[in-house]
């Protein structure tokens, strides 16, 4: 009984928008309040990283990789230098490996704090949880400043180790942070994880099943929230992760609430990893002797790490020169956007921003 003629309306969630996490454009077609079609438009932040990498030598490309996922730059560095080490057969001393793991886990906590804060900001909580999460992230950025002098684009790792050793005050500050962070996670969980309104907005919304996730090449917390227990730190272990004990939290049904909760649980595991590293680390060299101009033999390598957003991989082809012949980035945020249309159609306008926020994309990585 259709007495009223209705018409779907197409709206452009333009590149400049408070809650698309960057310059990202969506053309959404609504039928009333329900979404019937969705078309993402990328490319507003495309800077040609892969082309630029072909004219820079291997050490210079580290600065290019910082700026891809500008929220989690240690992970980008780590993935890149591991690929170069695999290409050129460079070994890494053990102390450097422990420091790398500490930095990668600190960066994971910082990135997940930002993701959680912004997800709750999109839910409408007037920036209060966002400011709390950023207060903790500031402490982690202070730690990074002690290590290498920068806060966001760090360029700390080098093929063969890390840039410089951690000063004495770093270890004291790290101990304080490691003891304080679990209390903060308890506070956030008590305020948010059982809040009636958060549960009503996120339970059962934007479900991604395990088959869909695997078929769409989704990785990272989104994949784990879809009940798939797959983490590159355990399945294809690298650095010193095989000596550390930690859990892989997974979600219950793959909705937005699971994606939020998996990130909180992963942050807790990261704190455990850092505590174990601090116990196990020993003195020693932090960088093996590699020249500035690395000339790997002709060949190729693909190495991937488990970054905060997912599987971050580099595929590099070398022809023996000082610059790579081809440097391709397997960007997790880009591939996590593949099932976007499936996840969002059928839901309402208020859910669009929530689901997009829970996937946790960074446009620098999507567009490279």
């Amino acid at each position, binding site marked *: 009984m259709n007495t009223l003629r209705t018409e779907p*309306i197409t*709206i452009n*969630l333009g590149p400049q928008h*408070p*809650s698309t996490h960057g310059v990202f454009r969506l053309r959404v077609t609504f039928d009333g*309040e329900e979404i019937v079609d969705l078309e993402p438009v990328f490319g507003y932040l495309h800077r040609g990283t892969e082309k630029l990498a072909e004219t820079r030598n291997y050490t210079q490309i580290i600065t290019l990789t910082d700026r891809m996922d500008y929220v989690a730059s240690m992970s980008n560095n780590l993935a890149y230098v591991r690929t170069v080490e695999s290409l050129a057969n460079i070994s890494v001393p053990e102390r450097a490996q422990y420091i790398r793991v500490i930095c990668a886990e600190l960066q994971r906590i910082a990135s997940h704090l930002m993701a959680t804060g912004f997800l*709750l*900001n*999109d*839910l*409408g*909580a*007037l*920036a*209060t949880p966002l*400011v*709390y999460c950023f*207060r903790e992230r500031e402490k982690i950025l202070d730690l990074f400043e002690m290590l290498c002098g920068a806060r966001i684009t760090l360029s700390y790792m080098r093929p063969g180790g890390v840039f410089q050793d951690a000063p004495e005050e770093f270890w004291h500050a790290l101990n304080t942070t490691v003891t304080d962070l679990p209390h903060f996670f308890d506070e956030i969980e008590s*305020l948010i994880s*059982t*809040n*009636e*309104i*958060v*549960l*009503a*907005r996120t*339970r059962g919304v934007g479900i991604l099943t*395990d*088959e869909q996730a*695997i078929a769409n090449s989704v990785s990272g917390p989104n994949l784990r929230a*879809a*009940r*798939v*227990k*797959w*983490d590159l730190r*355990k*399945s294809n*272990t690298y650095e010193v992760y*095989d000596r550390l004990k930690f859990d892989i939290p*997974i*979600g*219950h049904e793959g909705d937005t609430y699971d994606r939020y*909760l998996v990130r909180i649980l992963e942050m807790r595991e990261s704190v455990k990893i850092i505590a174990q590293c601090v116990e196990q680390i020993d003195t020693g060299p932090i960088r093996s002797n590699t020249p500035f101009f690395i000339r790997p033999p002709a060949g190729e390598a693909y190495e991937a790490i488990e970054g905060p957003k997912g599987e971050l991989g580099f595929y590099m082809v070398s022809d023996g020169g000082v610059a790579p012949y081809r440097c391709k980035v397997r960007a997790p945020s880009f591939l996590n956007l593949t099932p976007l249309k499936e996840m969002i159609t059928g839901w*309402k*306008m*208020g*859910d*669009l*921003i929530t689901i997009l926020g829970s996937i946790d994309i960074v446009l620098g990585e999507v567009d490279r």
Partner: protein
Amino acid sequence: MHSPLLLDFTTFYELFFKAFDTLGFEASAHWMSYTAAGISLSFIAINLLILSTALYTWFERRTIARFQVRRGPNRNGPYGLLQPFADVIKLIMKEDTIPESADKVVFTLAPIVLLAPTLLIITVIPMDDSTFLGTLNIGILFIVGITSVNSIAIFMAGWGSRNKYAILGSMRGAAMLVSYEIPMALGITSVLLLSGSLAMKTIADSQLIWFILVMPLGFFVFMAAAMAEMSRTPFDQIESESELGSGYNTEFSGIKFAILFLAEFMAPIVTSAVVTTLFLGGNQGFSPIPGPIWFILKMFVVIFILLWIRSTWPRLRIDQIMGFAWKPLFGLGIINIFLIALESQILMEEGKLSQNDMLIMSGINWVLTIVGLLVMFNIYGHKRYNRPDPIPSQLANMGTDLQ
């Protein structure tokens, strides 16, 4: 009646009467002093209200900032007290844009239509023995009628902007505001059952025990409906800035935006004044502090609670907001009226209720309310969500012994 604050109609009337009499207008002194008293008193009252709204914006920004572990504005004047004036000066100096294809009459009138009802409500609030303009016999009915003009104003704002986002936002807003009229009316009806009169002063006086203690369920229903009528979080989907621009006030700038802003921030003040009269006993209080000061203190408590809720909770989705109005709140409102009617019939003697009767009612009602709300949250709420242990999918098997 003369009030200690000298801000009431009779004083002004007599003043003007003397003035016009001595000036030689005896014949028409009556209606002239009546008009002059009314106009001047309204002028003073409206200015005081706008000034207190400006002060309230300062208070809100500082308090929300404190909830967020930061300071609020502190650069304009001592403690940032001149911040609202800086905001107004900036907004006045901005260009007053009107979109080219907009409906100019509707666009220009929308802020005024939004502001006028909120200003009118202050005329029936009994801060003292009566309101500053005298007693209106149908005070509460006047308020219910006036607040329904809000929905027209919001729709006018969206329609006049001729902007897809604005129209979407304002349509959602109009639907929400109309739906929440009913729980508000139900909350008010339960108050009327006990007070027996529509006049605001009589309602305040008939609270031998404050009605928040006698009918907590009615208080809850009325507060929830009032928060939605003011479009405050958790019901502020229509002006959610993190989705689709800024809702119905996207196209307004300059003085029009200042008026919309003013109306939005005046609403909590006026609503908490109404809540104080209906549920918190008006200006009752013990003696060294005069009545109006008690009134302002109670208003302050209600405003603070509204602000606290705003800065902590996320917002509900529009269909959840509508569901909340029509299912739980409507049911609770009707149950509340039924309960109050039953109890007052049983306990009433000679058509009046004594203080003891009200005590008994409050005891019964509090127990019933707490039990009822607990039952409802357990059945419908998500809080009892015990997350079961997740079962890993069979599609992936890391196969390591590093578990």
